[in-house]
């Protein structure tokens, strides 16, 4: 039985390569071991529960020593996450988790570092740290819980809320144009960008596994429902009746197709290049099949998803298929995964090579350093 969705992405140098693993002869770790003794205090029905459960059951699969896993969060509902995992963790300050995680990951090659953040934490107050973490490509995985609302402060619009949203702070409708987190991350040249959904355990787990395996900063946007302040924000992509026409699954090496299957089980929609805009657009495959209704001919015209394309332009274009208003259409999956040297690996390499080139004990070298070259002696 497969516990995860095949995303078609082959493994490169692993993100967890230098993290100590559990003894293969020891009994397998369980999700329970990763569960702390703290009472979970999210609202009933919160999407965070599903993500927490998925992470708790997924972490043992990594086979890493629990004490070498660190979760760092900022501020917001989702940022309570580290308290519920029995690993090392820090619940830090608003927006700054990526910077703290950067310090941890750069200082210690042997740690598997996760950041848990939300749309307000990561994209509003912490936007600067997010884009710079992505640019720097420090080896860590950022889980961005996007509920398109401020929950902990009780219901103001967030940087991903649709324009015109009526909230406590915008009684006449929000005037802000929202960020698309995936587009933003691709614009920052992130080396791994993915999107998944709280309620799709299988897809979520598959994306987590790929993100953890990626060496560099992995940005995973997780659509997460807030039942109190923004309930139903993702209904169109979750509802059995509408989701097949709403979700555009991305699988590396496969043509980008979706839509309610036809009688023969074939997808009915797809994504093609749009010469008019230079971007991409979603089309009904029926419009591509021609008079012979040749399904293969239609597939041949579609974009074949290439997550490893060094140029992020196509991935960016695909990300633009996401609705910025109420979410009726959204691609999910791994938009981009490219290999790029990580900041922390290179920083440690500079230190290691400098150390190897320096003779003598630290004490001797300190003496040499502080003496310098121009000294005089008074007797």
């Amino acid at each position, binding site marked *: 039985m497969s516990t995860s969705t095949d995303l078609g992405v082959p493994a490169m140098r692993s993100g967890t390569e230098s993290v100590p693993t559990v003894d293969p002869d020891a009994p397998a770790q369980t999700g329970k071991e990763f569960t702390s003794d703290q009472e979970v205090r999210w609202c009933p029905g919160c999407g965070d529960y599903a993500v927490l459960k998925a992470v708790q059951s997924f972490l043992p699969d990594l086979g890493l020593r629990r004490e070498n896993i660190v979760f760092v969060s900022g501020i917001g509902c989702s940022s309570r996450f580290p308290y519920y995992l029995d690993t090392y963790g820090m619940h830090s300050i608003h927006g700054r988790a990526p910077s703290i995680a950067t*310090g941890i990951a750069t200082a210690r090659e042997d740690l598997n570092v996760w950041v848990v953040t939300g749309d307000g934490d990561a994209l509003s107050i912490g936007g600067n740290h997010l884009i710079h973490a992505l640019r720097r490509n420090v080896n860590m995985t950022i889980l961005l819980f996007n509920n398109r609302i401020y929950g902990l402060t009780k219901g103001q619009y967030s940087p991903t809320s649709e324009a015109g949203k009526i909230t406590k702070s915008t009684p006449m409708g929000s005037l802000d144009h929202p960020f698309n987190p995936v587009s933003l991350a691709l614009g920052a040249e992130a080396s791994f960008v993915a999107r998944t959904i709280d309620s799709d355990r299988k897809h979520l787990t598959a994306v987590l596994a790929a993100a953890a395996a990626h060496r560099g900063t992995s940005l995973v946007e997780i659509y997460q429902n807030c039942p109190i302040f923004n309930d139903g924000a993702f209904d169109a992509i979750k509802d059995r009746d509408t989701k097949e026409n709403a979700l555009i699954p991305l699988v590396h090496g496969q043509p980008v197709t979706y839509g309610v299957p036809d009688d023969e089980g074939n997808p009915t929609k797809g994504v093609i290049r749009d010469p008019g805009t230079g971007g991409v657009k979603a089309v009904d495959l029926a419009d591509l099949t021609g008079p012979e209704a040749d399904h293969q001919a239609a597939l041949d015209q579609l974009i074949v998803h290439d997550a490893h394309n060094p140029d992020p332009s196509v991935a960016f274009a695909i990300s633009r298929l996401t609705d910025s208003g109420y979410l009726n259409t959204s691609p999910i999956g791994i938009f981009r995964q490219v290999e790029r040297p990580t900041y922390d690996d290179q920083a440690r390499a500079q230190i290691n090579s400098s150390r190897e080139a320096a003779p003598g004990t630290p004490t001797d070298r300190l003496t040499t*350093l502080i003496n310098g070259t121009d000294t005089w002696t008074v007797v």
Partner: protein
Amino acid sequence: MIRPAAPVELKVGQVSKQVKQLDRVIIRFAGDSGDGMQLTGDRFTSESAVFGNDLMTLPNFPAEIRAPAGTMAGVSSFQVHFADHDILTAGDAPDVLVAMNPAALRANLADLPKGATVIVDTHDFTKRNLEKAGYTANPLDSLGDAAPGHPMADFNVHTVDLTGMTVEAVKEYGLSRKDAARAKNMFALGLLSWMYGRPTEGTEAFLSKRFAKVPDIRDANITAFKTGWNFGETTEAFAVQYEIKPAEMTAGTYRNITGNLALSYGLVAAGVQSGLPVFLGSYPITPASDILHELSKHKSFGVTTLQAEDEIAGVGAAIGASFAGSLGVTTTSGPGIALKSEAIGLAVMTELPLLVIDVQRGGPSTGLPTKTEQADLLQAMFGRNGEAPVPIVAPQSPGDCFTAAVEAARIAITYRTPVMLLSDGYLANGSEPWKIPEVADLPVIDPDFATATNHGEGDDAEFWPYLRDADTLARPWAIPGTAGLEHRIGGLEKGEGHGNISYDPANHDFMVRTRAAKVARIADSLPPLEVDDPSGEAKVLVLGWGSTYGPIGAACRRVRRAGYHVAQTHLRHLNPFPKDLGEILARYDKVMVPEMNLGQLALLLRGTYLVDAVGFNQVNGMPIKAADLAEAVGTLVAEAEGIDLDPAVFSHPTTAPADHEEAPR
């Protein structure tokens, strides 16, 4: 004023030269920002240090990298005070001004005492440059019969076409006129090096190395330097050469060092002495950036430097590194501290070691980026939300920045707390001879990582991250990778002991008091304060902190020389205060607190000890002048002693020797 000794006749070449003995000289090199005055001053300082004089320096430069050439805004200067005895400041007023253009002359003339020597490069005294400097008439005109009221009447002026002679001297190297003229600072350095008998080998070696890749520039600079020396030796314009004998210093090996360099070395030393990798998260800011630059060179000591995207990320990364078992450090100036405040509060709450280095500059806001000030004390003390006590240490001289950095690290690691180190622009860029410590004498700092559970037995054994050491009240530092000690910390209030989130009112009250008590406990580890009260009869205590140490010491020497009693002490630790401070304050009738702010330490002393501290406050971006302070201290002494005297006796001594910074007696 310079104290002349009996002139000695000496034959040098064809020209008869006098050699005069001086005990101390203050020289200021001033020119356009692009004229290389900082380099010239640095080289003169290095030569003086190697020669064995005691010295202090005061670089002073505009915030603009290249302000419009020839303007007053673009003037950059470097003052060096060197002596045959122990000195404490870079000097109040220069005895010698070297002015490379009209703006440099005009910007500095008002600082000169009567009788000062002025050496002027006449080359740039053109109509256009005079106008740029705001001169309506050439101040060098009619020098010969300078009448009272002539701007140069009070000075001993040497007009020399430094640029013209430089260009002539280096013409064989085929440089453009512009490049040739750029060597004029080395001509000036050569001339001054001759005048004061400085060794020259160091500068020649320096130039050879610096311009190794451009041989014609290298040769031109060396030639200009030597030509300047020879010019002094042969011209009749300079009839006197001066000798300032090496100073008597405590036995040991010395080097010249700036505050920022000493601070950087202190951080490297803290890493070596604690066995912890140093992790610097920093964002460039004047005048702290040099620490980032310096530490970036020391990767071989395991020092990681991250130039972050902003001040907050710099401290955030440092906190993360500390959580992971490094010595997290962040370096900045006042505006950066403002940005880091919330994160420093996080380090207070999570009780992680963290060094926060604030190289203070003029504020508020962007303020005076390149000028010095001590106005961040209250920001360091209170600049966070909630009750967020942070220990504060301050170095008192450039070389002392080394010791202060190691001490700050000791406190941070031992007590698991962020520590604020308050340097300032004067210490950062100023330099002095530094007696190099023996590494074996430096304190060893034990990180004392937690390795085992600390609560309960057997199957119930747990790790409680907030179970404290009974003596220090420090919590255990368990770093990721330690099996069985997995735990979560964060900015929410922690329950005492177990460290889980707690909103319990009584617990919060207890934790607030405990964090304060932990910082207060640091005082148990501090040595008694040293009070300098030579006669034991002083009624006035002068108490300072940070870089005012030099001016305060120099002012007290003056007051004592005039025959009065005054005591001095200086605080390394601003939070907590040393335990005996209250008792010491109570011993004196009057307490004066000189500060480069509007009375921040005085406010703390008044609040803590109910002492009627009197401020001496200056916020003009420059160090306090010893003469000004001596007058204020003297006036207070007179008041305390109930005597009537003219305070001018302290600031303008009329009795010989007319030195304004005496050696201690």
